[in-house]
C-alpha cells in the first residue's frame, strides 16, 4: 500500500493524494480480497450462518413458529441433569466407536483383497459399492423388516432350521437393538472406507514391493513397512469422515427404531430431532446438536494430529 502512495507523491506531486478508494481499487492485496469475496460469502452464508444460528438458538427458549428469549445456558444446565441426554451421548459414542472400528477393519481388508488380481475385478469393485448407492432410508427400511420382531427373515430361517423355537426380539431388546443398528451402519459404511482405501492402495508404487521382495520381506513386513505408512494420510482422511458421518447418523436410527426401545438407540442427532422438531422445543434441540460440536472437533483433532504426523498436507517430504 505504502509504495503506491509514495510513487504518486514523488513522481507527480501536483496530483491529489491517493484516496482510500484508489487504494482499494488498485492495491493487489485488496484485489485478492475482491476475488475471495464470492467464496467467502458462500461459506458464511451456507456454513457459518447456520452454525452460528444453531448455537444462538441453543441459548434461547425458541419454539417452532415462535421467536424465543435469550435464557443463557439454561438449556445446557437442564441437559446436564437429563438422564436421556446422557444415555444418548453414551449411545452415540458406543455406536461411533464400535461401528467405525469395524468399518475400518472390514474396509481395509476388502481394499487389500480388491487390490489383488482377482477374476472379474471391475465387477467386484462395483458390487462392493452397492450398499453405498442404495438410499439410506431404503436400506434402513429393509433392515427394519429383517429385524422385525414378528416377521424377521432371520428368526424365520432359524425357526425353520429348528435352531430356535421363538422369534428373536431384535429391535425390542436393548442389547439386540444396539447390535442391529450398528450392524446396519457397518453394512452401509464399509464401501466408502473400502473404495477410498483402494484408491489409496493404487497410488503405492509397485517398485517398492519389488524392491522389498528382492530384500526377502514377508507379506506382513511389506504391509507393515510399505503399505501402511503410505496409506496413513488416506486412512486419516477416510476415518475422519467415517467418524463424522457415524457420529451424526440420523436416518438409519429414525427409520429403524426411532430411538427405541426405551431410548436405547437414541443418538444425539435423533434426540435432537425428537425434541426440536417433533416436540417443538427448538432451543433445547439446538443445545443437543451444539453439544455434538466438541465431540466432533475432538475426533477431527485426533485424526489430524495423531494420524497425520507426516507433513504430507504441507507438501513436504515425509520424515
Amino acid at each position, binding site marked *: 500500500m505504502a509504495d503506491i502512495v509514495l510513487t504518486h507523491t514523488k513522481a507527480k506531486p501536483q496530483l491529489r493524494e491517493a484516496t482510500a478508494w484508489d487504494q482499494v481499487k488498485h492495491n493487489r492485496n485488496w484485489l485478492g480480497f475482491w476475488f475471495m469475496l464470492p467464496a467467502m460469502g458462500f461459506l458464511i452464508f451456507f456454513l457459518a450462518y447456520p452454525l452460528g444460528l444453531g448455537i444462538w438458538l441453543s441459548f434461547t427458549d425458541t419454539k417452532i413458529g415462535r421467536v424465543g428469549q435469550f435464557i443463557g445456558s439454561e438449556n445446557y444446565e437442564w441437559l446436564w441433569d437429563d438422564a436421556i441426554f446422557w444415555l444418548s451421548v453414551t449411545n452415540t459414542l458406543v455406536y461411533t466407536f464400535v461401528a467405525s472400528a469395524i468399518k475400518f477393519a472390514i474396509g481395509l481388508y476388502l481394499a487389500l483383497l480388491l487390490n489383488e488380481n482377482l477374476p472379474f475385478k471391475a465387477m467386484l469393485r462395483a458390487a462392493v459399492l452397492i450398499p453405498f448407492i442404495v438410499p439410506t432410508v431404503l436400506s434402513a427400511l429393509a433392515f427394519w423388516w429383517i429385524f422385525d420382531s414378528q416377521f424377521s427373515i432371520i428368526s424365520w430361517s432359524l425357526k425353520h432350521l429348528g435352531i430356535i423355537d421363538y422369534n428373536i*426380539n431384535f429391535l*425390542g431388546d436393548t442389547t439386540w437393538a444396539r447390535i442391529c443398528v450398528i450392524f446396519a451402519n457397518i453394512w452401509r459404511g464399509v464401501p466408502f472406507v473400502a473404495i477410498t482405501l483402494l484408491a489409496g492402495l493404487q497410488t503405492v508404487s509397485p517398485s517398492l514391493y519389488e524392491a522389498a521382495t528382492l530384500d526377502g520381506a514377508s507379506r506382513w513386513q511389506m504391509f507393515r513397512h510399505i503399505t501402511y505408512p503410505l496409506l496413513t494420510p488416506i486412512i486419516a482422511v477416510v476415518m475422519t469422515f467415517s467418524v463424522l458421518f457415524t457420529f451424526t447418523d440420523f436416518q438409519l436410527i429414525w427409520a429403524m427404531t426411532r430411538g427405541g426401545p*426405551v431410548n436405547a438407540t437414541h443418538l444425539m442427532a435423533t434426540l435432537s430431532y425428537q425434541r426440536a422438531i417433533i416436540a417443538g422445543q427448538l432451543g433445547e434441540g439446538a443445545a443437543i446438536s451444539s453439544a455434538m460440536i466438541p465431540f466432533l472437533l475432538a475426533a477431527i483433532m485426533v485424526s489430524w494430529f495423531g494420524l497425520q504426523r507426516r507433513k504430507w498436507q504441507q507438501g513436504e517430504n515425509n520424515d
Partner: protein
Amino acid sequence: MHDFTRRSLLQGGTALAAAGALTGPALLDFAKAWAQASPWKAESGAKLTVMRWKRFVPAEDDAFNAMVAAFKTATGTEMNVFSESFEDVQPKASVAANTGSGLDLAWGLHTLPQLFPTKVLKMNDVADYLGKKYGGWTEAAQKTCMLGNDWLGIPVATIGGYLTYRKSAVDKAGFKEFPTDFPGFLELCKKLKANNTPAGFALGHATGDANAWLHWILWGHNAYTVDKDDKVIINSPETAKALDYCKQLSDSFIPGVASWNDGSNNKAFLAGELFCTANGISIYVAAKDDPKMKDLADDTYHALWPVGPVGKPTELQLAVPILAFNFTKYPNAAKAFVAFMLEKDNYEKWLTGARGYLTHTLNAYDAAPVWTADPKNQVFSQASKRALPASGIGKVGEKAATAIADFIVVDMFANYCTGAKDAKTAMAEAERQLKRIYR
C-alpha cells in the same frame, strides 16, 4: 401444492362418480341454495388457501374435494387446497401464524388452535350456528377448541382408535363379551397368551398407538400428568398403580412390543399373529378390502376401551380441528366454508367416505349412515364422546401437545414395563421432564 385445476377436478369427479352420488348436480344445487341462505356471505373475489393433513382413505379426500369444488362454484370463492403429512401441519401453521401470511385456513391435529390464540379468527358464531342446528358439541371437542368463552376453531372430527380383536380368540379365552373393566381386560390378555393367541400394544415410539393406550391406562387409574392448574402431579400413588397394572398387562403381550411403531400392530394383526390390539379402523378396513382376508375380516371386531377404576371412560383420541387465521382477507368466506363442511348434506357423505376413520363431534350425527352401514363401525361413533382432551384434566394447549410428542408418558411406562427402571425412577424422570415443559 394442490391447485384446483380442471384436471384434478376431473380426476376427483371420476373417482366420485365411481364412489356413488357424492357429487353431481345434487351437491351443487344444495351448495347454491346453501350459499343463498347462509349467514356468511363470501366476499366477492375471495380466495382461500387451505392446508389440511394428508388423508388416510382416498374416498375421504374425494368427498372433501367434492365439497370444496361445490363451495367454489356456489360462492365463487377461489379455493387452493393442499395437504401436508401429520408432522408438518403444526410447524407450517405456526410459521403462517408468525408471519401473518400464507394460509387462510388450517385443518390440523390435537389442539392446534390453542397454539396461537391471538392469531385465529373467533368462530363463536359458526360454533353456535352448528351446535344449535345439530344437537350440540361433545365435551372433549368443545374443550379442545375453546379458550374461555371463545371458539378458536371448529372441531371438525375425531380420528378414533379402539380395541380391535379376533372374536374367535376372545371366545376361546372364555369371554362371551369383550371385558369392560380393567381386571377383566387383564384376565383376557392373560388367557389370550395362554392360548397362544396373544394381545399386543405398542411400547415403542409410536406416536398414535402408544400414546393412546398408555394415556388410557394412566387416566383410567385417575392419574394425570398435570392437574387442572397445570401443576405436575405425575409422581403419585395412582401412577404407581397404573404402572403396575400396565406391567402385568405387558407381560402377557406378544414379544417385541417395545420396538413397535404405529404400523407394527397392523402388520402383525393382518398376518394373523396378533389377536387383540388398539388401533384406528384401518386394520379392519384393510382386511375388508382384501378378498383374500375375508375370514380374518369376518372374525375381526371392535370394542370400546374398558373403563378403569376411575369409573368413567378415559380415552385419548386424536382431535382434528380447523382454524381460520385472523389475518385472512376473507373472514366471511372462511367461516362460510367451515360451516358448509359440517352441514348434514356434506358431512354425512364425508363420514361415509372416511369409512369410520373420522368420527363426528356434533351429537346429531350419531345417526349418520356410516355407523350403521357396517355394524362393526358402530364402536367408532363414540370416539368424540368418550375422549378426554389430549391434556387430560389439565389446560388444553401447546404444553400438553409437547409432552405427548416427546413421549414422556410412553417412556415412563416403557421404562417400567421392560424392567429398565423401577417405578420410582421412571416416575421421577417423567416428573422432571414435565416440570420443564410446564415451567
